[in-house]
């Protein structure tokens, strides 16, 4: 059971979750009223499928952000693992055919880059912003090198079928995302890694003073983020059918936006994976709903921006005391 901070019935009034949850419900209702076709089972399946990869990314990013750091290397890692999986399993360029072993191996670059990020931040004291920015470029560059203008096409049919297929009326990718979310929830609330990450974000000095091996958990957070970004890249390739350098295009900002809208503070110490999941869903519903109600493409970016601003305002309304420092 998650730590309960209130007594009695109020135990379940976790405002952190209710806020974004309510926003999601309002959005869904609004879109359904404007365009009834939005509220079909098929569309909700589409939304679930569409949020699968962003959700996996958001879970990984959440741990890093909870500690008060940031991981900008998402897109690079996705590209690197996308190319790796495309080269390791049956494909049009290399002669390899490692099947599901290839899929597992393709996660290793993500893990490795995550570790690298962690070591840069803890040993060399490079700010996470800079370290992960560099990792992004390096990973992307490596992916481009491998791709070389002739992206490897995935010919392994079982992986393609997995990426595009469904199990019990839910897309496979959405199922994987749910598993990742569950895994993230357990990590966050039932392991030292999760609880201490919260502590590090809320007061790193005190954490160190209390004897916590802070560096170890920082590296772990980046490693988890890298691993999950790798998973996202692999799944994206399964769906699209090739190793694609642009597989993660735009995902980094979208992930951070989702995490922030969900209520996880960028300065650390507050939030969680469930909140980030809600944030992801909000963004997915938004993008999907705007197509349904026919907002012209030119206007969509502006509308998205306006909604993100409003969501942030609502999320931090309680905290807007004059004397609070905002950066």
């Amino acid at each position, binding site marked *: 059971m*998650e730590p309960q901070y209130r007594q009695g019935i109020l135990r379940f009034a976790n405002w952190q979750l209710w806020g974004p949850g309510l926003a999601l419900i309002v959005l869904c209702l609004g879109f359904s009223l404007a365009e009834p076709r939005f509220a079909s089972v098929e569309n909700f399946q589409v939304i679930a499928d569409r949020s699968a990869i962003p959700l996996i990314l958001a879970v990984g990013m959440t741990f890093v952000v909870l500690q008060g750091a940031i991981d900008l290397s998402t897109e690079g890692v996705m590209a690197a693992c996308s190319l790796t999986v495309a080269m390791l399993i049956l494909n049009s360029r290399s002669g390899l055919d490692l099947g599901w072993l290839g899929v597992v191996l393709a996660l290793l670059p993500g893990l490795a880059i995550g570790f690298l990020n962690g070591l840069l931040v803890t040993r060399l004291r490079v700010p996470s912003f800079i370290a992960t920015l560099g990792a992004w470029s390096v990973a992307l560059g490596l992916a481009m090198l491998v791709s070389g203008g002739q992206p490897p096409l995935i010919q392994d049919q079982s992986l393609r079928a997995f990426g595009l297929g469904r199990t019990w009326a839910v897309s496979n990718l959405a199922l994987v995302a749910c598993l990742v979310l569950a895994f993230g929830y357990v990590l966050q609330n*039932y*392991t*030292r890694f999760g*609880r201490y990450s919260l502590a590090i974000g*809320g007061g790193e000095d*005190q954490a160190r003073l*209390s*004897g916590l091996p802070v560096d170890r958990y920082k590296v772990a957070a980046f490693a988890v983020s890298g691993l999950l970004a790798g998973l996202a890249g692999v799944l994206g390739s399964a769906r699209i059918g090739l190793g694609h350098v642009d597989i993660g295009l735009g995902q980094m900002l979208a992930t951070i936006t989702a995490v922030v809208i969900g209520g996880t503070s960028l300065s650390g110490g*507050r939030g969680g994976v469930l909140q980030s999941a809600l944030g992801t869903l909000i963004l997915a519903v938004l993008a999907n709903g705007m197509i349904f109600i026919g907002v012209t493409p030119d206007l969509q970016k502006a509308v998205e921006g306006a909604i993100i601003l409003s969501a942030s305002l609502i999320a931090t309304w309680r905290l807007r005391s004059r004397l609070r420092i905002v950066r």
Partner: protein
Amino acid sequence: MRQTVLRVERVSKSFGGTRALDDVSIEIRAREVVGLVGANGAGKSTLLKTLCGLCQPDSGRIVLRDKVLGLKGIADAANAGIGMVFQELSLLPNLSVAENILLGHEGAALRCGFYDWKALRALAAAQLRKLGSSISPSARTGSLSFAERQMIELARVLAIEERAQNEPVILLDEPTSMLDAAHIEAVLAQIENLRERSSVLFVTHRLDEALRVCDRIYVLSDGRCVAQRGRKDFSIADLQQHMLGRELGVACPAQARPARQAESRLSVRALCCGNSYRGISFDLSDGEILGIAGVAGSGRESLCRALFGIEQPDSGEIVLDGQPVQLGEPADAVRLGIGYVPADRDAEGIVAGLGILENMTLAHLGGLCRGPFLDRAREKALVEGWIAQLRIAPGAAQTPARHLSGGNQQKIVLAKWLVAGSPKILILDHPLRGLDVGAKMDITRLIRELAQSGIGILLIADTYDELTALSDRIIVMKDGVVSGHFPAGGTKPSELQILECMV
């Protein structure tokens, strides 16, 4: 004679050129409370840090039950059975009480890497029971009061008992300096409690407390252990003499102050703010020092913050020089000539990274400008003048503020409000907190000088001595209302009288 548990043998430690500890030897025996007193900078903190592994001595050794210790960090110390309660609390505000108590040593509550919340809460509750506390293990630490958090710190240190084979050694770094009277009593009672299951090293500024609970007291001065006294030989004057190396009167000599008849500078009428305070009315004249007494939760801190614009009252009136004023934010108050010296110096008073110069001129840069540019020469001259007048040491204007001792930092905070001209009103929130005897005297003198120059001063103080020594008038607040008023002139109220109004 009881058995020796912890022995510090001829430990020395230098930081750069300064010798923080010089050949110090002390001894702590089983089930005793040993006091450690000394002026700021005498080396008490350094000694504690050495004992809990935060720094390594240059020479000498630490022996715990006949085993030489080589401590590399807090975790090592905890494993050896030495626990420290920090002055600036080291709890993690985001975590629950239970997690903080068992941090790093969750033991049976951690199965295969996964938390068993029920077990964790039970273990924590057991520690809290030792202290007789009713704080809920599930509460979020950040939401507790200072005093409650200190209780958690104690519980955390006691948790060492479960792991160590022997009774732990508990180091207390000035646990009472941030507390008010009622809570101080509670802490001292706990120390008595602790004596039955551990050995305690109790560091404090307040000699009366040390005399009450300690079996023996060591005096540190300039890094050296200059005296050791047993119960039979306790005497405040004697200890003070060793601390400062000079004869002293009472720490804050009282002065007869003539009753002043002056215009009322500041009038507060029926000020209310929710549950914090209700119906507060008083006047403050030129050059008068008004002391406000009360326990935590009496509303006096909120009241003063409202008078500086940090918080807004719900209703009532603040009248300054005959004009009602609205204080929406501190900038308004500063503009109207109200200054505020906060209780938490580190967090709210000085900018640690900046130098003395920058800190002093922080509130009044406008007055030092020529056109859009800062007049650096004038700024420097002004600041150097104040450094000399206030005897701030070290005296280089660019010394970073965090390198100064508490007393000197407090002087900077005061100077900040004096730099560009006299403010009309100064609000002082626990100005003498955390200062050693010498610094207290300096600041007391300073406050008196300020009052004499015509500034009206609102003073919140903790100890009876400070209140009566400094204040012309005293009002007492209890649960948000004024419960007692001791006017100027006439005899000073006794400690009992004030206490009666406070609780």
